[in-house]
């Protein structure tokens, strides 16, 4: 075990093997009965409520949530290096980080929030 990544590789192989095994097994062993209802959003046939706008598959607000998630996800990318090297970076960087968060997080957040982007109704 010279390479530190070897255990990880083994883990990946195990994981992939398990997935392939179980999916393959389900294909072979499981019963296959086709039913159109299975292709629907809710198998029981209930109409999705609220109705997707103008016949789309999902209401658009799901998209808005996903997208806002990405924006805040990206901010975390910078928070991590900052946190790791925090003690060596000094006051200047604290201000830089503050400015970044003010702009990309607080202002963006305030705007989306006040405009009802987070409301789920």
């Amino acid at each position: 075990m010279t390479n530190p990544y070897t255990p990880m590789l083994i883990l990946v192989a195990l994981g992939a093997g398990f997935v392939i095994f179980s999916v393959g097994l389900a294909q072979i062993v499981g019963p296959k009965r086709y039913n159109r209802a299975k292709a629907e959003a809710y198998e029981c046939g209930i109409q999705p409520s609220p109705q997707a706008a103008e016949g789309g598959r999902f209401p658009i607000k799901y998209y808005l949530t996903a997208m806002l998630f990405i924006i805040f996800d990206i901010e975390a990318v910078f928070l991590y290096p900052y946190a790791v090297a925090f003690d060596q970076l000094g006051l200047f960087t604290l201000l830089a980080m503050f400015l970044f968060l003010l702009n990309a997080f607080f202002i963006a957040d305030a705007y989306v929030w006040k405009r009802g982007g987070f409301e789920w109704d």
Partner: protein
Amino acid sequence: MSLVNYIYLSAILFSIGGAVVLLRRNAIIVFMGVELMLNAANLAFITFARMHGQLDGQVIALFVMVVASAEVVVGLAIIMAIFRSRRSASIDNANLLKA
């Protein structure tokens, strides 16, 4: 093996991305082609960073990812808006504007 192989791979992925943009007619897939091109560039940046023994290339790759995510959000919002208007995402159907 030498590090050049990564650059080969990057060039190939970039070209495939370009072909996707030019050949495919579906706006979402075209956009994915653009993302592929950006990823190819990132691979080149990272490999060059290793060649030169610098971290600059890695930082650049990080910024490219941030930029690309913002671009994805805006782009998909536009694609969604147009899809809702016309119920189709094929850019061939976007033909009100004739050349």
